[in-house]
Every structure is written in structure tokens, then in C-alpha cells.
């Protein structure tokens, strides 16, 4: 009996510690995790700077980040098709060898460390400034670190499930805000539309690109989805959903607070929430909304932390990352405490530091790994390759045609999404060129951009849906 119990304990311990081998999430979970990474980060930082640069046209600031994430999603799909069930760190080691792969992994780890430090401190400063004034900042940093330590013992599946619970609520609260703020909205505050200098629009787009670079952490979870097309569509759809919500929030900030005031606030989204005055009874709705937003922000931070742990263990060619969890979480806590002396420094780093880190290494890593993968594909053309990741295109055309009827195929929706994004760009470019002479063109450009953005969200949703259908049919 004692022997059986000991064996059971050993098996249970093995199941807990060997988490990485069995991690599987579906494409909806990956999409919502992506959306959470994109949207929850934007809630606390950057929006004031975007409004300061582009004023009433700040809501056009997410066009370049969307295009960038489309490229990153295509890159992840490409490499995970060649190396199924491998994460970005392992793929880098396979393609570039021990030293080259380790160098890339160290670059990625440095970025992930910086963004986890940034986000934990941001959350603590946010709580300290707005809610818990007399609580020491170190304690407010320690609490999320304990959450990280707890989730570090689990797997990405657990984070994805927690995100499944809270992200829909986050989406509902953001969508409801347009309804709740109806009595405060003045549409004229966004006029004249698209009259900001193109250089300002470019600058705000570039700064927003810095926060979009956070999506690179999903490279650490590539092994959790075996279908390359699922990875691409999930990231595309999640990113679009996240950016759609951020665009809506920015637009509401301009509608309610105007194009000048939010630029001077530290947390304009929180000020927007405070503007909800339905009745005297519902005057402090901000507390309720923050209780929904906090877990979503926590999910983002946990996902980044897990990517850090996975990267560290991959560097040592191990799958079990739980052994590093406690010391790394405590190390992250101490670096959070020592990294920033004031809120101004933190916001400066969050708003202007990310873009430099992202552009300094991500395009280089993408090109390097893509070229190495292409060369490897050529050299191993004759040799037997490992089984490639399944794609939606594997199913027989007849079977697929029967399932999808007369509607568009997966590739059709994919290119329609790309076309809608190009439409967004055309509307912004056209509006910027002619709106100074003809204000109506600017308004038409704004409406066209909004419609194309909504259509892109819908087309990426259809991509995910088509893949699900073809998987069910296959």
C-alpha cells in the first residue's frame, strides 16, 4: 500500500513538473491571449502620448502595428510549419546552431525580462496612484510577483483558461463604455478629421508599434498549437480584436475628453471610465470596471513571465521550467523595485523605450530565422523531413467544398483581411492628402477606416472559423 502511494506521488509529481511536454491550447485561446496582450497593455500606457502627438487623429495610430503583427503571424506560421511542436527558442537553436540560437534566445529573454518588469511596475504604480495611496510600492510589486510565482508552477493552458474567463468580460466592459458614455459624447471633438501632419501620424504609429512588439512572446508558445495556419489566424484575429478595442477607447477618449486634455493625463482610460455618470447610484463604476480589467492585465503579465521561463529552460535544453520559477519571480520582483525611481521614468520607458528594443532586434531575428529556414529547406529537399504541421489545405478540395458551400475559402478570407487592411491604409492616405482643402474627404476617410477595421476584425474571425470547420470536417 505504502509502495503504491509512493508511486502515485511520484507520478503526480512528474505530471506537475513535466508541464511543458503536454501543453496544448486551441486557436481561440491563443487568439484571446493575443488580444489580451495587445489591449490590456494599451489601457495603462501610451494612449496619452498618442493623443499628444496626433491629437484628434490619434485613433489612426494602430494601422502600422496591425500590419507588423500580420507579418509576425506569417513568420510564426512559416517556422512552425517547418518545425512543428517546437517553440521559437528551440527553432532558433535548430536553425542557427548552439551559439547562434543561444544569442537569439538571450536577446528574446532580455526583451521579455524588460517587458515583464515594465508591466509589473506599471500595474503597481497604477494601483498606487489611483487606488492604494498609502500602501508601499514594494508591497504592490510583491503581490503580482506572488501571482507570477503561483502561475509559474502551472502551464500556459491554465493562463489561457483564466484568460477565457476574464477576457470576454473585458471586451463587454469596453464595448459597453460607448453606451454608458453616450450622454458625454461630442462627435465634433474629432473634427477636423485627418488634418494632422503625416509625420505626426507616422510617429504615433511607430510608438504604438513598440507595444505591438510584445506579441513576440507568443513565439514561446508555438509548440502548444500544431497547426501552422491556426497560429497565423489566431494571432491575426487576436491582434485585430485587441487593436479594435484600443481604437474604440482612443476614439471615446477624444469624443468625451477632447483632443487636448487626455494628452496631459497619466491614465486617460481611467479618466474616461470616471466620466461614466449614469445615475448617482452608479457613480463609482470605475471600481467595478477595474476589477474586470485587472485580471486581464494579470493574464498578460503571466503570459510574458511564462514565455521568459520557457525561454530560460529551452536555453538549457529542458522542458521543465518550474524549477526556475521561484528564483526568477523573486529576481523579477527586485528588478521591478530597482528599475524605476519615479512614475515619470516608468512611463517614459513604457512609451518610448519599447519601440527601440523592438526595432533593434525583432526585424533582424525574423529575417535571420526566415532565411536560415529557407536555406535549410533547400538543403534538406532530398532528405526525409520531420512531418510538417498540418494545415487547413490538407483536406481534399471536394470535401472542403462540401463543407464550406459557396462561401469563401480560408485563403479567400485571409486575402480579404489583407485587402481590408490595405483599404484602411488607402482611406488614411487619401484623407490626409485632401482633408485640408476638402474636410468632407477627411470625414469620409475616417468613416472608411473605421468600416475597414471592423471588416478586418470580421474577416480574421472568419479565418479562424473556416479553419475550425475544416478541422472538424477533416
Amino acid at each position, binding site marked *: 500500500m505504502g509502495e503504491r502511494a509512493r508511486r502515485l506521488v511520484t507520478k503526480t509529481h512528474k505530471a506537475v*513538473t513535466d508541464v511543458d511536454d503536454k501543453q496544448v491550447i486551441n486557436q481561440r485561446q491563443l487568439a484571446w491571449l493575443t488580444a489580451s496582450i495587445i489591449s490590456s497593455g494599451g489601457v495603462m500606457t501610451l494612449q496619452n*502620448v498618442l493623443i*499628444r*502627438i496626433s491629437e484628434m487623429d490619434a485613433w489612426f495610430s494602430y494601422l502600422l502595428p496591425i500590419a507588423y503583427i500580420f507579418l509576425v503571424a506569417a513568420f510564426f506560421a512559416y517556422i512552425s510549419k517547418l518545425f512543428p511542436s517546437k517553440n521559437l527558442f528551440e527553432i532558433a537553436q535548430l536553425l542557427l546552431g548552439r551559439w547562434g540560437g543561444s544569442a537569439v534566445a538571450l536577446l528574446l529573454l*532580455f526583451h521579455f525580462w*524588460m517587458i515583464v*518588469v515594465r508591466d509589473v511596475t506599471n500595474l503597481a504604480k497604477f494601483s498606487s496612484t489611483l487606488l492604494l495611496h498609502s500602501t*508601499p510600492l*514594494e*508591497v504592490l510589486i*510583491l503581490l503580482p510577483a506572488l501571482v507570477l*510565482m503561483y502561475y509559474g508552477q502551472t502551464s500556459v493552458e491554465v493562463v489561457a483558461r483564466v484568460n477565457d474567463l476574464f477576457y470576454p468580460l473585458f471586451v463587454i466592459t469596453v464595448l459597453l463604455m460607448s453606451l454608458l458614455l453616450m450622454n458625454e459624447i461630442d462627435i465634433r471633438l474629432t473634427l477636423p478629421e485627418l488634418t494632422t501632419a503625416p*509625420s*505626426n501620424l507616422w*510617429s*504615433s504609429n*511607430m*510608438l504604438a508599434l513598440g507595444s505591438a512588439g510584445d506579441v513576440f512572446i507568443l513565439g514561446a508558445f508555438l509548440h502548444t498549437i500544431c497547426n501552422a495556419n491556426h497560429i497565423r489566424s489566431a494571432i491575426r484575429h487576436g491582434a485585430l480584436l485587441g487593436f479594435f478595442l484600443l481604437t474604440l477607447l482612443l476614439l471615446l477618449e477624444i469624443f468625451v475628453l477632447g483632443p487636448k486634455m487626455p494628452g496631459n493625463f497619466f491614465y486617460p482610460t481611467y479618466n474616461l471610465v470616471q466620466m461614466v455618470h449614469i445615475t448617482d447610484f452608479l457613480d463609482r463604476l470605475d471600481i467595478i470596471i477595474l476589477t474586470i480589467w485587472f485580471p486581464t492585465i494579470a493574464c498578460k503579465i503571466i503570459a510574458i513571465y511564462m514565455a521568459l521561463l520557457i525561454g*530560460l529552460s529551452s536555453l*538549457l535544453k*529542458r522542458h521543465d521550467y518550474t*524549477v*526556475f520559477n*521561484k*528564483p*526568477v519571480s*523573486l*529576481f523579477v*520582483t*527586485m*528588478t521591478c*523595485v*530597482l*528599475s*524605476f525611481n519615479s512614475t515619470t*521614468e516608468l512611463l*517614459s*520607458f513604457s*512609451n*518610448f*523605450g519599447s*519601440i*527601440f*528594443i523592438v526595432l533593434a532586434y525583432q526585424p533582424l531575428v525574423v529575417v535571420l530565422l526566415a532565411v536560415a529556414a529557407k536555406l535549410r529547406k533547400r538543403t534538406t529537399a532530398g532528405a526525409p523531413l520531420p512531418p510538417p504541421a498540418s494545415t487547413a489545405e490538407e483536406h481534399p478540395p471536394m470535401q472542403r467544398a462540401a463543407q464550406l458551400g459557396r462561401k469563401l475559402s480560408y485563403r479567400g478570407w485571409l486575402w480579404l483581411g489583407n485587402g481590408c487592411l490595405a483599404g484602411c491604409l488607402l482611406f488614411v492616405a487619401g484623407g490626409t492628402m485632401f482633408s485640408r482643402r476638402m474636410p468632407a474627404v477627411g470625414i469620409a476617410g475616417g468613416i472608411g477606416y473605421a468600416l475597414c477595421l471592423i471588416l478586418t476584425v470580421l474577416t480574421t474571425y472568419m479565418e479562424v472559423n473556416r479553419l475550425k470547420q475544416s478541422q472538424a470536417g477533416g
Partner: protein
Amino acid sequence: MSITFQLSMILLLLLAFMTDRPLLRRMPAACGVVYYTATTLTLTLLAAKHWHWNLPMPTRFFIHTICPWVSGLVGL
């Protein structure tokens, strides 16, 4: 720095070390090196905070060099 925070950190480090020690024995030496490096760095940072030593953090480079440059580039 809050005394609650310092005590919590030391207790957590001790607790982590005690619970991870059996696991570390079964792990290869490289894992132990990473584990003990992270723990030593954490203790050093804790001591630096307590005695007000000015340790160079990577974020300082970005805050003092990169961020003003980027901020100037975007016209702020």
C-alpha cells in the same frame, strides 16, 4: 524600503530554496548554476536596495539615453 517587503523577500527566498533543494539534486549542473545565479542576484539587489547602493540597471540606459532621443524624434 518597507520592512514588510524585506522580510517577505528573505522568507520567500528561504522557502523557495528549501522546497527546490530536492528537485535541484536531480537536475543537471547547468540548472543549478542558473538557479543559484538568480538567487544570488536577488540577494545582491535586496542588499543594494537596503544599503542604498547605486547598481546599474538596464532600464537606466533606456530612460536616460534612448527615451529622450526617441521622444525628440517624435517631436515631444
